[in-house]
Each structure stands twice: as C-alpha cells, then as structure tokens.
C-alpha cells in the first residue's frame, strides 16, 4: 500500500504546553482516515502542521512524499483543505468561487471551464450557478466547499469538522461525496465529533491529551474495548483526559 502521510514523533510545543506530543502514524492512499479526539486534545494543531499552517517543534513527516519542512510548496500543490468555518466567499457566485479557487491552484481557463461545468452538474446546481453563495442553504454550501477543495485533484484532502451544524440527511449526502473522492484515489483525512461518521471511516485514530491513544479500524477498536458502538470507544478513551476546553 502507498503511504501518503507518514509522521514520526511529530511534536508541537507552545512554550511549556505540548499541544501535540510525538505523534506517529501512517495514512495510505485512497483511505478515509478519521482523526478523532475531544475538544482541546490537539487535533487541530496536528492537522495544521500537516497542512503547512503551523511549523512542528520537532519530529518528521512527509505528505504525499514531500518533506514537511523543506518542500512545503510541493505539499501545498498536492493537498486540499476545507476548514471548520465555511470558507467560500459569500459575496461571490458559485461559478466565481469555483473559478477563483481553481485559479489560485493554477488550473488553466479551459480546465476551469470544464471542471466548473462538471462540478455544477454533479451537484445539480445548474439553476443556482450564478447566485451568490451566501444565499445557499448550509448543506449546499458545505457540499460545494468540499467539491471546491478537491477541484485541483489533490492527493490528500484535509477536512476539519466538515459537517458541523448540518442535518443527518445532508450529512449522509456529504459522505457520499467523500466516498466518491476516495474511490477516485484521493486520500481523505477527516476530523469529526460525530460517532456515526467515525463508523464510515476506514481507520480512525483517537487523540487524548496531545497523544494518539488508539489507531485501528472501527470494528477492531470496538472489539478491543469490548463495546458495541464507537460512542463507547470514544467515551472510554476520552474519559481520562486531563485537558478539555
């Protein structure tokens, strides 16, 4: 199996506080990798390091085969990112947003035209293509946001709590998009608080107090802790946490 994310003792300190402590894991190509943890466990810090938004204090990592310290530009070209906050421009139309984000990833005019037509077709947003994004319902925005994040066909896409505040039906549809992306070979790295979503992942890791305490498939984790749901796995692991927000 191809390894697309490899970290070795990746650590981030803020003064005396160790936000992420010697994190070591591998993520394989085409995998949906769930990154779980209670609030304040260090998920966001770890993810920010992997995306190049934050420099690690120590440890090493490669993303899509590129070194996290030396080849940040290469990494940026090969990843997509969807932030926790809804992050498209509300005062631009759907089409303008697609063109802008495609443009900053260096897609050509021809590619942009093809891609945007295809994307709008898949999402069934033909009638709304020229509407301001701000006027769309939240579920639509999130689906659009995800599609924009993988527009440039990245090797890995990082999703930071992508389905916050969305109803269960839309969430299900959102996960259909994630599966599609994974089938096409894009590795999905997703943080979430919803345990039903954790079940959808191929493998999940659990962060507690800045460390990875568990890493396996949902089925094996349930077996290991002798429980029937991911909810209980999460509760068992997070219960002992010293840190919480």
């Amino acid at each position, binding site marked *: 199996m191809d390894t697309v994310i490899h970290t070795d003792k990746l650590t981030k300190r803020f003064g005396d506080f160790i936000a992420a402590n010697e994190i070591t894991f591998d993520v394989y190509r085409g995998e949906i990798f769930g990154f779980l943890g209670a609030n304040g466990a260090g998920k966001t810090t770890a993810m920010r390091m992997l995306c190049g*938004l934050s420099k690690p204090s120590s440890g090493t990592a490669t993303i899509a085969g590129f070194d996290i310290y030396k080849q940040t530009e290469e990494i940026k*070209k090969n990843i997509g990112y969807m932030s926790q*906050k809804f*992050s498209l421009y509300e005062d631009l139309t759907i089409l303008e947003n697609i063109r802008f984000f495609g443009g900053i990833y260096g897609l050509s005019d021809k590619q942009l035209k093809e891609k945007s037509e295809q994307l709008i077709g898949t999402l069934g947003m033909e009638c709304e293509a020229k509407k301001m994004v701000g006027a769309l319902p939240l579920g639509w925005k999130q689906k659009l946001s995800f599609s924009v994040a993988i527009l440039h066909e990245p090797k890995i896409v990082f999703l930071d709590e992508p389905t916050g505040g969305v109803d269960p039906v839309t969430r299900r549809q959102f996960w259909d998009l994630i599966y599609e992306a994974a089938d096409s070979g894009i590795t999905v790295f997703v943080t979430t608080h919803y345990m039903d979503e954790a079940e959808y992942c191929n493998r999940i890791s659990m962060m507690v107090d800045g460390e990875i305490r568990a890493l396996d498939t949902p089925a094996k984790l349930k077996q290991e802790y002798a429980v029937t749901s991911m909810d209980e796995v999460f509760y068992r692991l997070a219960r002992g946490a010293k840190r919480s927000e």
Partner: protein
Amino acid sequence: MNNTSTFIKKEFLHVFRDRKTLLMLFGLPIVQIILFGFALTNEITNAKIVVCDYAKDDASQQIIGKLQASQQFDIQRILLNHKQIETAFKDAEIKMAVVFPANFNSDLLHQHKAQVQLITDASDPNTATAISGYANQIVMDYQNELMQLQRVPYQINTEVRMLYNPELKAAVNFVPGVMSLILLLVCVLMTSVAIVKEKETGTMEVLLVSPFSPFLIIVSKAMPYLALSLINLTIILLLSVLVLGMPINGSILLLYAVSTLFIITALSLGLLISNRTASQQSAMLISLMGMLVPSILFTGFMFPLENMPYPLQLVSHIIPAKWYYIIVKSVMVKGLGFSAIWKETLVLLTMTMLLLVVNIKTFKIRLT
C-alpha cells in the same frame, strides 16, 4: 426589580471585563483635553521670519529689534538681497519676510512717510493673515512711539504681499488636507477591514493552505484600494480645479507619483493593523482612533504645528499624512519641483519601507 438588577450587574461585568474599551473610555478624554488644551492653539508664537534690510538705518534697526523682542517672531536670518527671499521660503520653513527699502529712515524723516513690505507664505492663509497682523501691529507701535516723542505725524505704511496665494483662498489649505485624510481613510480602513474579514470568515486559512504565495495574497488584496484611491485623487483634483478654482501649479505627474507613494504607505499601515487584529470592529476602531484622529490633529492643516509644544511636534513627525500634506502644498500650491520635496519624500519612503519590513516579518510569524 431583582431581575433588572441582575441584568444591570451583568452589563457592568461586560464593561469591566473589556479592559481595552475601558482604557479608551477614560484615556480618550484625558488625551483630548491635554491635546486641545496645550497643543491646539491658533495663537502664533515664534514664527520663523527673515528680514531683508536695504536701509540699515536707525529706524529699520529699531523695528527689527522690536520684532526680535516680540514673542511672536523668531528672526532666522538677515538677508542682503531680495532674491534670497524666495529661496528662504523654499528651503526653510519661513513664514514671513520683512523688507525695508534703502531710504527707509530718510523717507520717514523728510517725507514723514515710509513703507515696509511684509511678504507672507499664504499657502496657509490663516497663519499668513495672523502673522502679517502681528507685524503690522509692531510697526504701528513704533510709529506711535515716534509720534509721541517728536510730535511729528509720521506715517509708516505696511505693504502686505501674500505669496503663493494672493487671494487668500481657503481651498489652498484644505484641499491638500482633505487629500491626505481621504487617501489615508480609504487605504488604511478599507484594507485592514478587507483582510481581517478574510480572517474572520476562515477564507484566509484556505488561501494560506493553497500554493498561492502569502505575499501575493496581500498584494492582490491591496490592488483594488490602490486603484480606487487613484480615482479618488483624480476626483478631488478635478473638483478643486473646476469647482474651487484652485489651479495645480506644479507638475501633475509629480503629484501623482508622490500620491502613489503615500497610498502605498497607507496601505502598509492598513496591513499592519490587519496583522494585529482579529475582528473587523477592532480593525475599524484602530483605523479611526489610531490613524484618522491623530492625522487630523497633527497634519497641520487645522492647527499650526509650529505652535505646539516641542514633544508634540516630535509626535507629528511620525504621522505620514503630515509629510504628504507638506509635499502636496509645495507641488500644488507653490508649484515647486522635486528638489524642494525630496526630504519629505524620503521620509515617506523610509516609513513605507519600515512598515513593509515589519509586515513581512509579522506575516511570517503568523504562519508558524
């Protein structure tokens, strides 16, 4: 009743927890009272003047002595030649030149009538009027003393010449002032708010993850405001020429060049603010209170800087709008070329460079 007091208590807690606002609430009146009380007087003291004395006789020497002794004037130099006057106005911050004709005393003694010429820099009409008034008063005092002493109806006339702005148009003063303030407001406020908005909505994070360079993100964001400001500048200039009848005496090209520099200075200031703030409100508040108000006070078009206490004059040096205001007046009103404004331009350029360096450093820090 009890509910209401619970509510009021909560509101007080909000106010006390917000230390910055509290500080501003009490800090502002203190700063403003001190500023308006000490700095912002329209009274003129120690105005720099030069004297050109062709007469070198008793009468002229006595009037020069009186000018020197007065609190209002500070004689910088005694010139030998009329031609030196114009260079004195250009080179130094001279407010007035007093010219005694060659036969001043003899005219006075024989014809009982003599003339003194007062040349003032009327690119600041209020100061020019006030200064020539003071000088006139001193000359009149001397005339009256002579009359009482010798009981002869001597008459000394003052001929006032308003240099650069003979009609004493107020526009000459406020158009450059308005230019400085509008450009500052548009660039600082709009850029800082625009960038902080991207931080607030989370799009900045997405941009930073993309391969697009952070430096170019900032440049792209500043572009519309640079363009808008140049259009704004054109509107102001057209209005002042067509409606206010205030001609552009110097090179338009030079005016646009230095204005572009000032716009870049203001844009970098906006950037600095946006780097340090997290919300649109605080960016707006800092832009208005921290930039606009000091610029109004310390630019020199509302309150003459010369009259401020020395420490406040030092403060005025760090206000970019002050330097731009001097440049605009020199080019637009006095019709001077680059040789007259290179110092001010250099100051603006240095400020811009410093701001940009600080910006690049802090922007990098934010990324780690």
